[in-house]
């Protein structure tokens, strides 16, 4: 108690001098001065100096503060970089593999959809969205359709197709938008995506690269399908074996054709299975396996003409005779073989009964001796050409020329008119002569001549008298070709199929070259702006990487227009990490990405805080000085 009381007394006593000093220091010192006249003068000049020089200082400081506010606003109020974009292209995997669930039981499709919708929400109302979904032979387009529902103000102007056409679709899209600004390419890639062909899409962005992403799910790792298809008469036989699904004895198998017709069967997973389907339309389609109702195996394309590296050619022969058709096929294939080159084309010939089931994704369609067709049928072909197909019309004895011209005038390059036998040599340049030696030497018998050519049409070959032999006209995204003479396998008649294969090869090569030159003319130059602190990202994505992982399977590249069309991909990592911190943790395969994303988000916030502090301190100093 004593100690306490003494402390109570002593403490204030000890503190008293300090308190007095503190009070004294708080008060200004009084000075009685004699030269106040001069002091006032000095004070005046000091203030004037402050007024004069601080004007500049004030401006600089104000600018500093404004700059800081601007940067801060940029950092803090930055909602999304996407908001500035006008045209957005979304490339997304739409395959059945997207049905697969992750460990938490969420479907990849739902997640991808959610992300895409998030991005769409962040876009301006005037933004034009192009959605290119891709999958195998055929697609459900569930994702695209569901997204379309949400695009109230935004215009969805493209719908993608399968792998072989993805590249063309993207190309066409870019061609359409040559003078516009294509800003965002959002790509969703599932495990099943053929990355090699996907890379070819990205070749349109010369520096474009993307990172392969695989979803790790141990239960789905080892599932594999070994499938063989046979065709016996009108019966299609599937013979295959499923491996890696030991836990499940019965597995449901679904086969879907290109029209969308489905057949489901239960098969034994431990044994080899054989399925027989009596429907020719199932020649092309998708094969699926469901395990436990939670996983749909990747679409297995079992028809062969879907390789983006090769151009597919389909010939529709309307001749009744099957033997003749076989001959045509034989001669054409033989013709390709005699070229002694690795054929870059996949050639299929359809029977007269099958002609309606031609694959609409084929690059070139040859109609040989078309008979009189209904309006609906013509619309089918018109639509095919409009969407980017190449249609070659070889009129034959069955072809009603007048009706043909009448119905197809919209897309035909010229009008056909009947003409008697005339043997003429073709005018060929040196290149053609080199490529098709027999073609140049032979005389062709033109059954028809072109009566009137459209202004837009282009003559590929002409006879020695100057009349055109092969004319081409652009329609929509594709081309319509027309040949004046019917083809035959006999030399004496008109054009030999053997030679035709040669011509076709060269012609399609030019088409391919045209594509390549088109690509060049686009002059796509992709360069990518990274955030300042990119070292962490570079570690993750490699030095030159420029497509960024938004979500597993989602890559985000922002592009900006330069001159004609140059794409600049920009990646706002902070947005992503801000938006999906938990998701990244769940989804990102590997810690580095996670760390990088988090690091960047933190840096962003800390930078903003630092700037805020700087602003406060600056303004405080400024105020204090102004007061003085």
């Amino acid at each position: 108690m004593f100690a306490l009381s003494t402390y109570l007394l002593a403490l204030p006593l000890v503190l008293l001098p300090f308190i007095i000093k503190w009070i004294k220091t708080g008060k200004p010192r009084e000075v009685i001065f004699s030269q106040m006249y001069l002091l006032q003068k000095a004070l005046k000049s000091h203030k004037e100096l402050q007024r004069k020089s601080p004007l500049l200082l004030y401006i600089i400081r104000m600018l500093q503060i404004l700059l800081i506010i601007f940067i801060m606003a940029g950092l803090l109020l930055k909602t999304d970089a996407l908001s500035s974009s006008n045209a957005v292209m979304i490339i997304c995997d739409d395959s059945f593999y997207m049905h697969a669930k992750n460990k938490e039981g969420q479907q990849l499709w739902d997640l991808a959809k959610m992300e895409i919708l998030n991005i769409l929400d962040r876009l301006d109302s005037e933004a034009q969205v192009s959605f290119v979904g891709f999958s195998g032979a055929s697609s459900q387009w569930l994702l695209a359709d569901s997204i379309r529902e949400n695009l109230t103000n935004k215009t969805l102007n493209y719908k993608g197709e399968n792998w072989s056409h993805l590249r063309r679709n993207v190309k066409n899209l870019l061609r359409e938008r040559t003078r516009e600004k294509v800003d965002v390419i959002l790509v969703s890639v599932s495990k099943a995506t053929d990355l090699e062909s996907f890379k070819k899409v990205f070749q349109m962005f010369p520096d474009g690269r993307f990172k392969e992403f695989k979803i790790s799910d141990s239960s789905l790792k080892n599932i594999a399908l070994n499938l063989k298809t046979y065709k016996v008469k009108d019966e299609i036989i599937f013979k295959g074996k499923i491996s890696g699904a030991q836990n499940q004895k019965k597995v449901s198998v679904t086969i879907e054709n290109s029209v969308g017709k489905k057949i489901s069967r239960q098969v034994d997973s431990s044994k080899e299975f054989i399925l027989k389907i009596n429907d020719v339309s199932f020649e092309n389609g998708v094969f699926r396996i469901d395990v436990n109702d939670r996983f749909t195996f990747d679409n297995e394309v079992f028809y062969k003409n879907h390789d983006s590296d090769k151009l597919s050619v389909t010939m529709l022969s309307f001749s009744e005779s099957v033997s003749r058709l076989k001959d045509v096929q034989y001669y054409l294939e033989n013709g390709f073989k005699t070229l002694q080159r690795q054929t870059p084309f996949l050639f299929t010939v359809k029977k007269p009964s099958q002609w309606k089931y031609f694959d609409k994704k084929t690059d070139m369609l040859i109609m040989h001796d078309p008979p009189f067709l209904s309006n609906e049928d013509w619309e089918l072909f018109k639509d095919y050409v409009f969407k980017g197909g190449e249609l070659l019309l070889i009129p034959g004895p069955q072809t009603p020329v007048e009706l043909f011209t009448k119905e197809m005038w919209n897309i035909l390059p010229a009008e056909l008119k009947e003409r008697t036998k005339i043997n003429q040599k073709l005018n060929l340049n040196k290149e053609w002569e080199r490529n098709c030696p027999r073609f140049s030497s032979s005389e062709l018998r033109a059954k028809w001549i072109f009566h009137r050519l459209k202004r837009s049409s282009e003559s590929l070959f002409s006879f020695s008298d100057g009349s055109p032999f092969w004319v081409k006209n652009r329609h929509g995204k594709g081309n319509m070709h027309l040949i004046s003479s019917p083809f035959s396998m006999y030399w004496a008649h008109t054009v030999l199929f053997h030679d035709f294969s040669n011509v076709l090869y060269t012609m399609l090569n030019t088409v391919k070259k045209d594509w390549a030159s088109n690509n060049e003319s686009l002059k796509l130059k992709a360069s990518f702006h990274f955030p300042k602190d990119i070292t962490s990202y570079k570690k993750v994505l490699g030095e030159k990487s420029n497509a960024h992982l938004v979500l597993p399977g989602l890559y985000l590249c922002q592009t900006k227009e330069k001159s004609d069309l140059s794409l600049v991909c920009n990646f706002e990592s902070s947005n992503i990490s801000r938006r999906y911190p938990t998701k990244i943790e769940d989804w990102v395969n590997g810690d580095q990405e996670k760390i990088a994303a988090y690091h960047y988000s933190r840096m962003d916030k800390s930078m903003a805080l630092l700037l805020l502090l700087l602003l406060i301190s600056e303004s405080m100093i400024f105020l204090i000085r102004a007061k003085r």
Partner: protein
Amino acid sequence: MDLDLPKEIFEVLDRLVMNPIVKSHDIYGGRHNSPKFGSNPDFKEYRNYQNGESSKDIDWKVSLKTGKYLVRKREHQAKIDNWIIADGSGSMAFPLKGRSKYLYQLMLTGVLVHLLKGQGDSTGLIIEHKHKPFFLTPQKTLSGITELLSKLCHFKPSELSNYGNSILNIRKRQFRPCVFWFITDFDNEPSKFIKDIKSLKDEGHDVRVIHLYHKEEKELAWRGECLFSDIENEIEAAKLRPELLQKEYLEIYLKHCDEIKNSIRDYEIPYHYFNIDGQLEEQIIQLLYGVKNIDLKETNP
């Protein structure tokens, strides 16, 4: 107020002489040369004899040598009037602690009066003040000088000084050339004062200006936030940080001093700039001879 002058200074003062530029016209004897020729044995010059003059003045020796009647001209020595114009303004009380400018002025006046009395000159005093100026005609007697000094001792510096009035007063009374000792600290606009002293100089008087200062006034050596109030209560108090103003103040102060010095010296008026904490002997010598260092022992008046 006591005059606390060191004793040594009086010993020094005994050897000093104040030589005015002007010549005394006084009829009484003094130490200063007069324009009149008197009976002083000191020879000044020879001149031709004029008719009617006393033959006593003819220097026969020289006249025989030259063949002309030459008269020896002798000097007349007379006393001269001195006016000490002391500054009675409030600023002279600075600094409040220690030796103030006013005290220094008092010491200086005392020394001067002592010196001038020794030379037989009379000293008058004017204390400059706006409301209660003091005026004392030149005194030669001890009682007069005592009155002068006691008046100066008992005067309390306050308010402003008004030089114009005092100079006008002097002009009314002083017709003969005399010596004016202006002691001030120039705490106000000096242009009018300088104009006045120039006019005095033009009238043929010997004017001397002593500018007093304290080092604190020059250096503004305070630190921290200070409330500066005017000692004369004329200018509003100002709250400021002297360390921020130091540079500008020094510039202005030096410019002010230079202006005064140049404008005064341009008119060939002796100007002395004295620190009140400095050596009084040195300053007195400087005041009288214009040289700082002089061997006083050898100086023989």
